[in-house]
C-alpha cells in the first residue's frame, strides 16, 4: 500500500466556498475542486501554506495541539523562536514576553536559536567533508525539504543531513534538563511555530524516527494570549536589554541568516517558494554552477513571513535586524555572547546532530513501471491536444496539463473541460443537460442556479 504522508494544513468543507484560489496558487498542484469544495491531495502537499494565505474565508486551518496539553507535564518548556519576539513592538522587552509565558503556565522558556552557534560550526564541517556534492542545500526549512523530495528527486542528495536549529536546541534542552534532575517523562517541550511545515516536521520528521518535541503551539494564538497579558502591564523605561542570543543566532531564521555566515566558497540565499522552484529547475539542469551552499526558504522574508506570524513580515524582519544593531552597540562586557555549550554538551550534540537518509517521493512519476508510464505519457500528450491550454481551472484542476494527467490516472473525465464540452455539443456528442450535470458535479448546485445566493456574496 502507498503510504499517506502527514500534512498539517486541513481544508474545512463546512467553510470552503469553492472559489479555487488555493488551487491556483499551490506550487505542487495538490488541490482540485470537486462538489464545490477544495480537495487536498495529501501526498502532493508540502505544507508550504500558500493556500492558507489566499483563502478568503479562513477555510484552511492548521492542525495544532490544544494549549492545555502543556498541563499534562510538570516541566513545561516553551521553545521560543526569535521571530516571536519580533512580532512585538521594540518597546516591549524580551523579559516581559518571557514573564507572560511563565504566567501562561510554562516553567521554562528556551530560545530556539540557542543551538545555532553549535549548528553553524557543524554545517561548515559538513560542507568541507562533502566537497564532491555541490551545492549543498540547507535542511532548515521543512517545506523546502519536502519540495525537493516531491518535485526535485534528483537533488535529494544535496540536502545537508543535519538537524534544524529547533531540533538541536530540543536535544540540548532535554539533555540538560535531565542532568538537572527533572524526570524526562514529565517534561514537555512545546515549540511555538510560525508555520505549518514545522508542524509536519514535528509530527512526521524527515531523516529521523521521531521528533523530541512534544507539541506545537500556533504562534498566532500564543501572540494574542501574550499580548493580552503584556498590554495590561505598565511600561517601565525602555533601555534595551542585552539579548540572550548572539547576533548570528538572532537573525538565523531570516533571509541571509545562514548564507551570511556559511563562508565557504559561494553561498546564496533565496526566499519565497516560487523563486526557489525557478532556481531549482535551473540547478537540476546543471545550468547553475559554482555555488557551494544554498539557503532556501519557502516564505518571503523567511520565517518572518510564516503563515502563523501575526505581524507584517517586513516590519518583523526590520525589528529583528534593529535588535542586532542595538546588540552590536553594547560594550563587549554588557553583551551576552550567547549560551556556550560545555565540551561534554558539544560532544553529546555531535553524536546526535546527523539526520538519516532523506528519500525522494516523486509526485511526478506516472507509474512505477516505465512501460506503463510511457503508455500514460502518450495518452497525456494526445489529451493535451484537445485541451485549450488556457489553464482556466473550470474543470476543477489547476492547469490543462494537470487535467490530462488526472484523466489518464482515472481521477477525472475529459468532459470536465468546458471547451471540450462546447466542441462535443457542436458535434452533437453531448447535450446541454449532461454538460450542466458535469459542471454541477465540479462546482456544486449553488454555483449553477440562477437564483441561488452564491456563497461568499452575502452582505
Amino acid at each position, binding site marked *: 500500500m502507498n503510504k499517506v504522508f502527514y500534512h498539517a494544513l486541513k481544508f474545512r468543507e463546512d467553510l470552503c466556498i469553492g472559489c479555487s484560489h488555493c488551487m491556483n496558487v499551490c506550487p505542487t498542484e495538490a488541490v482540485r475542486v470537486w462538489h464545490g469544495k477544495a480537495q487536498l491531495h495529501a501526498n502532493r502537499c508540502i505544507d508550504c501554506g500558500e493556500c492558507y494565505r489566499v483563502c478568503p474565508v479562513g477555510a484552511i486551518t492548521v492542525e495544532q495541539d490544544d494549549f492545555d496539553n502543556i498541563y499534562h507535564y510538570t516541566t513545561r518548556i516553551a521553545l521560543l523562536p526569535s521571530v516571536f519576539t519580533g512580532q512585538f513592538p521594540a518597546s516591549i522587552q524580551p523579559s516581559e514576553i518571557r514573564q507572560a509565558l511563565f504566567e501562561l503556565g510554562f516553567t521554562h522558556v528556551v530560545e530556539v536559536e540557542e543551538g545555532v552557534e553549535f549548528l553553524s560550526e557543524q554545517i561548515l564541517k559538513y560542507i568541507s567533508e562533502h566537497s564532491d556534492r555541490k551545492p549543498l542545500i540547507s535542511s532548515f526549512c521543512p517545506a523546502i525539504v519536502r519540495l525537493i523530495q516531491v518535485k526535485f528527486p534528483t537533488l535529494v542528495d544535496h540536502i545537508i543531513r543535519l538537524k534544524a536549529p529547533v531540533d538541536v536546541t530540543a536535544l540540548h534542552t532535554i539533555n540538560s534538563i535531565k542532568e538537572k534532575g527533572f524526570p524526562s517523562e514529565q517534561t514537555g517541550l512545546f515549540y511555538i511555530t510560525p508555520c505549518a511545515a514545522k508542524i509536519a516536521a514535528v509530527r512526521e520528521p524527515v531523516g529521523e524516527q521521531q521528533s523530541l518535541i512534544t507539541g506545537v503551539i500556533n504562534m498566532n494564538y500564543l501572540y494574542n494570549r501574550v499580548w493580552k497579558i503584556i498590554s495590561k502591564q505598565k511600561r517601565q523605561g525602555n533601555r534595551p536589554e542585552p539579548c540572550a542570543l548572539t547576533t548570528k543566532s538572532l537573525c538565523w531564521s531570516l533571509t541571509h541568516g545562514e548564507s551570511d555566515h556559511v563562508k565557504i566558497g559561494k553561498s546564496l540565499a533565496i526566499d519565497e517558494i516560487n523563486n526557489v522552484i525557478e532556481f531549482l529547475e535551473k540547478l*537540476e539542469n546543471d545550468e547553475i554552477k559554482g555555488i557551494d551552499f544554498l539557503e532556501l526558504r519557502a516564505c518571503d522574508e523567511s520565517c518572518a513571513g510564516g503563515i502563523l506570524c501575526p505581524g507584517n513580515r517586513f516590519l518583523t524582519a526590520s525589528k529583528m535586524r534593529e535588535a542586532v544593531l542595538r546588540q552590536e552597540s553594547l560594550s563587549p562586557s554588557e553583551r551576552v555572547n550567547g549560551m556556550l555549550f560545555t565540551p561534554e554538551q558539544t560532544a553529546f550534540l555531535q553524536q546526535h546532530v546527523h539526520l538519516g537518509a532523506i528519500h525522494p517521493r516523486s509526485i*511526478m512519476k506516472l507509474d512505477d513501471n516505465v512501460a506503463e508510464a*510511457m503508455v500514460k*505519457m502518450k495518452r497525456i500528450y494526445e489529451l493535451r491536444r484537445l485541451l485549450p491550454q488556457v489553464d482556466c481551472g473550470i474543470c476543477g484542476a489547476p492547469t490543462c496539463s494537470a487535467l490530462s494527467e488526472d484523466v489518464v490516472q482515472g481521477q477525472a473525465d475529459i468532459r470536465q473541460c468546458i471547451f471540450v464540452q462546447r466542441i462535443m455539443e457542436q458535434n452533437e456528442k453531448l447535450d446541454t443537460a449532461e454538460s450542466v450535470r458535469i459542471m454541477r458535479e465540479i462546482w456544486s448546485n449553488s454555483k449553477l442556479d440562477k437564483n441561488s445566493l452564491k456563497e461568499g456574496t452575502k452582505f
Partner: protein
Amino acid sequence: MFFEYSIEGGNFAQAGSTSSQVKKNLKQLNVDGSVIKRTVVALYEAEVNIVAHAFRGTIIVEIMEDKIHILLNDEGPGIPDIGKAMEIGFSTASPEVREMGFGAGMGLSNMKNNSDELHISSKVGQGTRVEITNYFQAKPVSLQ
C-alpha cells in the same frame, strides 16, 4: 515517443528549455534520478553549444522504454578538429560568451562523461550533428 524542438543561435535566455522539458518527461516515466541527471547535463551542454556557436538547430528526442536517444543538428560553423574540441579546456567561445558564464571548454568532455553513447560528426562551414544515447538501466554485460 518523438519530441522535436528548434533552437535559435545566440538566444542564451532560451538555452535550457529543451533540457527542462526532457527532464520533466523522464521524471514522469520514473526513470532513475542519476540517469535523468546525466541525460539533462549532456543535453544542456549540447543545447548551449548550438546557442553559442550555430545559427540555428533542431533537437529530436526519442524516448523508448529502455533508453533515450537525442539527435541535435545545427547549421553553423562546424568543428574542424573534433578530437581537439573534446579536450578539457579547449574553447573557441568569444569573450562575450565566456562573460555570460558559458564557453569554459568543458562542454564536449562533459557531454562524453554524461552519455552512454556519443557520436559527433561535423562539416566545416555547414554544421554539426550530435547523437546522444542514454540507457535507463545499466546495459547487460554482453553488450558493453
